[in-house]
């Protein structure tokens, strides 16, 4: 039930809540909340009337709930009012207030006026507000509106006050008499007073005596008329310092025209004034400096008219300042050929595009031109291009200097070219090079003749040795031979002092001058003659003649020509040196040949008797000697073989140091190599009761490409060396793969022993020629000391090197790595490593061509043992006769024999018309082990080569190969031919 008592209470409660809150929005929200609670409304909003000029709209201040617009009925109601600043109309409200409307859902909307503030909107369900209550609410609504307006004014005042307080300008408010009522923080800071110190005082407080009183009079005249005064004054701070202030004073006029307040807004412009003064000073400084500059500085507008130029700007072009000031077009100072080009450059710069700075031909007012670089950049004002400014740099001097420098630089280039070109020139071309160099230098300096004279102080003459002449210029070389030095005595004198002779103009020489007569006879107009020195000795001079015109050489040019003369001296020196070298080389080659022949001869001469010793020892051993003889014979055989080994080493080493070793690479099996080593070395090891072991790692490729003979030689050398220096224990050979690089397997070979070891300070020495680690070693173990040097040199040929690790008393490890390509198993040569003397050679008819009786006996012994039929020829000639009739299967041919040597005999056989004779197998027997001999024998048509003293298995194998195997091959070949036919 509603009763008036309750209503009064509600109204009272609402009234008590009006004006609660700290700001307008909060007060509106709190009041709205109380309205809604007390009147049992479920939603509401307060709007504030906003005026724009004469039009009005309603701005939402608060809503409960916040999203009240979700209620469609509320939206319908509010649409009666203008709630958008874009739709404001003249009439504030289109309906009369209070406005009430009820919708179908029994919700009633109430819109009430809140005095001049705005509107209150409330929504209530079911039970409507009683009419009398709505009217009773009006005074409360008015009170609420006024309270909200009051809040609004307070807030505006607060904002204004804050704005004034926060202003950077010093603000002061006085009453009509000029007494200070309010000052802001900036005023206090500027003048040095606290707020409370200034309030109540007269404005004279900050007045400075340095102001002209007339200013104050003018100020008060304006203010008394109610006008705003603006001007500058000197003010005084609390600390008595003064500052320049820019001040605006506004009188506040009441309704009846009376002034009740003044507002003064001021700012300290001392700094600004200083800046302005500084700017002026800076501008003056710029003007003065610009006028001091020798280069023109200028500015043009967008049309190309000069708007500024410094003093040089009009002086250099010959214009008067007034002509520049009257808008001279910049193009007038550019040569006509370059105008289009510079116009395009300026156009691009004015469009803000990038463009370079170039050289132009500039034009003076009097028509003269000069080259100049013009540097320019756009003039920007507030982001827009308003013209171009730049600088003109006269490059006349620069260009002249540049040309000179370029000429000198070119001259230097030619010298460098000549120097580098001729540095590697062949001996045969040196003379040509000197002539060519004279031509180049002559052409470059535009001379007509370039030449060289050699001084011969012994004979007191000079000769023209080289000469180049320009086309059409008569050569003088032939006429200028054996010229007496006395004819050029002054020249010679100068040259000996290191001075050049420079005659820029021959016609300036004295009429009776001998030199003038000589020169004029050759039509020479100018001349320069530069001394040539070799090891501080003057050896001649280089000269340049000018016939067609006068030529003057600068000091710089002279200096460079002196360098050229020195280059020519060097060329001449080289010519001489090369000639000496050639002679020396020929001598050396002769000596080397002599050494080779000597070694070859020595080899033969030593081997021949050795052949006899070894061969006969072998025979004696085969003939079952007595036990005491056996021991002696074995010693004899060992000694002979050792001597043979020493000879072989010396020969091999000789080849290595003379660079005559060529690797014979082929496919081979590493296992065969290591087996071969074992077969050869195992007996030696066994004899010393040393364990010889070898190991080949699984990843080592079976077949590789290399020089197996040399590899075996290296391994054998190392192993024999190891056995030699090991008294007990072991020698181990291991082969492993350590890598794969550039398509090749890196194989490491290691020979380890438990021998005496090598002191670390001897690691290098043992690889030197004929050296062992100590002289006692040589005494104890023997040998030439060439084993390891041969190994080292062979490895160097194979692009490898030997490494050593050793500890004295414990043993040594020699190792090396060699890169091998994969080999092809099908290409492996197989050898019968074990030769078994069987009856294979039975009935083979052999011609033994040998002059030495002992050798004949030795050979016969074995050949008969193998059941060969043997006939003997004492020299090549006899052999040729015997072959014609003998029907031999094979010839054993000694190479060095009296009457006819083996080579000649072989050549004759190979030239025989009888095919059978011509193709007979010939095996060379030679005491010489030199590779060159082997090659020579092969070149003469011999099929095989056995060195003496021969190793019986080698001879047996060679005979098998050249008889039985050869016959089978021929047979197969014939079969193949007949099949194909």
């Amino acid at each position, binding site marked *: 039930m*509603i009763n008036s008592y*309750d*209503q009064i*209470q*509600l109204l*009272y*409660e609402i009234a*008590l*809540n009006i004006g609660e809150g700290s700001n307008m929005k909060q007060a509106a929200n709190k009041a709205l*909340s*109380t309205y*809604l*609670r*007390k*009147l*049992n*409304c*479920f*939603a509401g909003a307060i709007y504030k009337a906003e005026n724009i000029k004469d039009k009005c709209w309603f701005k939402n201040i608060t809503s*409960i*709930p*916040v*999203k*009240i617009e*979700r*209620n469609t009925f509320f939206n319908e109601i509010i649409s009666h009012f203008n709630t958008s600043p874009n739709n404001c109309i003249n009439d504030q409200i289109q309906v009369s207030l209070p406005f009430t409307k009820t919708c179908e859902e029994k*919700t009633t909307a109430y819109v009430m006026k809140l005095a001049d503030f705005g509107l209150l909107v409330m*929504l209530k*369900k079911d*039970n409507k*507000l009683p009419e009398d*209550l709505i009217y009773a609410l009006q005074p409360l609504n008015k009170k609420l509106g006024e309270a909200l307006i009051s809040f609004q004014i307070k807030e505006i005042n607060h904002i204004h006050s804050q704005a004034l307080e926060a202003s950077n300008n010093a603000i002061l408010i006085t009453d009509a008499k000029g007494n200070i009522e309010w000052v802001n923080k900036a005023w206090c800071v500027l003048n040095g007073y606290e707020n409370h110190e200034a309030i109540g005082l007269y404005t004279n407080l900050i007045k400075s005596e340095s102001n002209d009183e007339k200013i104050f009079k003018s100020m008060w005249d304006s203010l008394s008329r109610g006008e705003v005064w603006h001007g500058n004054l000197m003010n005084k701070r609390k600390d008595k310092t003064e500052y320049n202030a820019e001040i605006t004073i506004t009188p506040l006029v009441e309704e009846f025209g009376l002034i009740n307040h003044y507002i003064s807004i001021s700012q300290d412009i001392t700094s600004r004034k200083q800046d302005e003064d500084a700017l002026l000073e800076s501008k003056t400084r710029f003007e003065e400096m610009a006028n001091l500059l020798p280069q023109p500085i200028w500015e043009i507008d967008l049309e190309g008219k000069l708007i500024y130029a410094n003093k040089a700007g009009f002086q250099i072009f010959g214009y008067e300042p007034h002509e520049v000031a009257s808008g001279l077009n910049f193009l007038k100072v550019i040569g006509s050929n370059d105008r289009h080009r510079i116009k395009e450059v300026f156009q691009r710069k004015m469009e803000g595009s990038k463009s370079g700075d170039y050289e132009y031909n500039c034009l003076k007012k009097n028509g003269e031109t000069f080259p100049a670089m013009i540097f320019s950049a756009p003039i920007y004002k507030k982001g827009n291009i308003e013209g171009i400014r730049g600088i003109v740099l006269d490059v006349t001097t620069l260009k002249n200097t540049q040309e000179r420098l370029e000429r000198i630089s070119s001259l230097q280039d030619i010298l460098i070219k000549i120097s580098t070109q001729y540095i590697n020139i062949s001996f045969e071309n040196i003379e040509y090079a000197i002539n060519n160099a004279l031509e180049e230098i002559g052409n470059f300096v535009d001379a007509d003749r370039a030449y060289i004279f050699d001084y011969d102080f012994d004979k007191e003459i000079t000769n023209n040795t080289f000469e180049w002449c320009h086309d059409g210029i008569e050569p003088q070389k032939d006429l200028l031979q054996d010229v007496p030095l006395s004819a050029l005595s002054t020249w010679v004198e100068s040259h000996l002092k290191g001075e050049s002779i420079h005659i820029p103009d021959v016609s300036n020489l004295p009429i009776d001058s001998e030199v003038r007569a000589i020169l004029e006879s050759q039509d020479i107009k100018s001349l320069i003659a530069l001394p040539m020195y070799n090891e501080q000795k003057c050896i001649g001079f280089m000269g340049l003649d000018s016939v067609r015109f006068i030529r003057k050489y600068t000091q710089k040019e002279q200096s460079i020509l002196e360098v050229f003369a020195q280059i020519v001296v060097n060329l001449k020196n080289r010519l001489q040196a090369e000639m000496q070298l050639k002679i020396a080389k020929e001598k050396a080659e002769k000596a080397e040949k002599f050494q080779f022949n000597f070694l070859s001869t020595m080899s033969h001469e030593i081997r021949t008797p050795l052949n006899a010793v070894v061969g006969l020892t072998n025979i004696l051993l085969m003939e079952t000697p007595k036990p005491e003889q056996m021991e002696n014979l074995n010693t004899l055989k060992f000694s002979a073989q050792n001597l043979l080994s020493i000879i072989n080493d010396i020969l091999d080493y000789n080849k290595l140091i003379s660079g005559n070793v060529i690797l014979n690479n082929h496919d081979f099996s590493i296992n065969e190599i290591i087996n071969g080593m074992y077969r050869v070395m195992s007996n030696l090891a066994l004899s010393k009761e040393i364990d010889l072991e070898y190991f080949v790692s699984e990843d080592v490729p079976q077949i590789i490409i290399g020089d197996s003979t040399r590899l075996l030689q290296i391994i054998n050398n190392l192993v024999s060396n190891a056995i030699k220096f090991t008294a007990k224990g072991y020698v181990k050979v291991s082969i492993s793969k350590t890598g794969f690089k550039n398509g090749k397997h890196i194989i490491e070979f290691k020979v380890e022993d438990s021998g005496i070891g090598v002191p670390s300070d001897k690691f290098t020495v043992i690889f030197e020629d004929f050296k062992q680690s100590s002289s006692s070693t040589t005494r104890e173990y023997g040998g030439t000391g060439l084993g390891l040097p041969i190994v080292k040199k062979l490895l160097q040929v194979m692009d490898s090197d030997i490494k050593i690790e050793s500890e004295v008393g414990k043993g040594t490890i020699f190792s090396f790595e060699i890169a091998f390509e994969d080999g092809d198993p099908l290409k492996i040569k197989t050898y019968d490593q074990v030769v078994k003397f069987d009856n294979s050679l039975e009935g083979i008819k052999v011609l033994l061509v040998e002059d030495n009786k002992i050798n004949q006996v030795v050979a016969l012994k074995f050949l008969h043992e193998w059941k060969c039929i043997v006939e003997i020829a004492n020299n090549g000639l006899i052999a040729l006769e015997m072959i014609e009739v003998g029907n031999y299967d094979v010839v054993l041919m000694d190479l060095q024999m009296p009457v006819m040597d083996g080579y000649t005999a072989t050549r004759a056989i190979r030239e025989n018309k009888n095919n059978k004779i011509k193709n007979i197998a010939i095996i060379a027997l030679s005491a010489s082990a030199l590779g060159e001999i082997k090659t020579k024998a092969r070149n003469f048509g011999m099929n095989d080569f056995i060195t003496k003293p021969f190793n019986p298995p080698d001879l047996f194998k060679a005979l098998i190969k050249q008889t039985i195997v050869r016959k089978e091959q021929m047979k197969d070949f014939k079969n193949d031919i007949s099949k194909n036919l």
Partner: protein
Amino acid sequence: MQKLIFTDLSNKKLIYNEIKKFTQLPNIKSLFVLAGDKCDFKPTDIEELFPDDFPIFGGIFPQIIDGNNIYTSGLIILGLSENPNIQITENISNPNLDLENHFNDDILDLEFKTFLVLVDGLSSCIGKFIESLFNVYGIELNFIGGGCGSIDLIQKPCIIFGNKLLADAALVVALKNRSGIGVRHGWETLAGPFKVNLSESNSILRLDNKCCWDMYKDIIERESGLTIDKENFYSIANGYPFGITTLGEEKIIRDPIRLNNDGSITCIGEFSQNSFVHIMKGTTSKLIEATGDAYLEARNSLDMVSESETILFIDCISRALFLKDDFTIEIEKITQNKIPTVGALTLGEIANFGQDYLQFYNKTSVVGIIQNL
């Protein structure tokens, strides 16, 4: 509506397993838990009882209702067929909390129709919380809920969120189910109005420029002939609450629960300074009649009757204390309508039916008929 009821809470593992099984039913998307205060649940108990991977919300109330049965201990667990939007607010007693920005107003566009609101009934600033809630979600939505907590009026964790138990917190649970809400109390004016000259949150210090206690005692003793003092304060004051006037509706009741040494009286719910209050009196018949009216009001606010309806009955614990044995009759006023009824006796009630201003009530029956829960 599907529900689980546990009165024996001794085997928590068993209960956990049952609840776990319940959450795995196909049409159970969330759980609404009503717990009796006598359970004396600690946060660890809640962690043991409820899974942590399922949407669960609820509270601990002085008593809970299932049909005609009222429990001081035990659990009533309602399985909801929808996954509601649940917002938790902690530290609601903090007066500086910016609640209007805290609530997510995006959900206004998601067709939610009914908001369940559970607050720690012994927190201060409940009024501000409810006002902010209304400010954000106020239009065209139904709100129903109440204050959780203990009858001994000592604040302790009482809000269930997931498997956590929180104090000084509030839950706002938005449901898409339609509902009708009825709010009635039946208290009548005894004396007043009196001006609240001085109040501090939930306490009145001065009434009509006099000490509140002096004024209150004088009126109660004069009007009822009873003698009231500090010892019997609540047993008598329970029948004489304060009423705040609103236009055309029942007064909003504030339940005086404590007499303070400074002569102020503390109620459940805030007072505005400069507002007017009456002192109210109640009779069993009027109060029970009002509960019946609340049901009718709820029913009338719904456009149609649904085959699947649940009554959520939020009644004030102090009404039960006032009505004593007759409280069963008040319950029957609801259950006689043959609609499954669950509910709680609360420390203050929260409701807004249709388009009313959302209020925090005391000593009031709030009936919510929720369809298709």
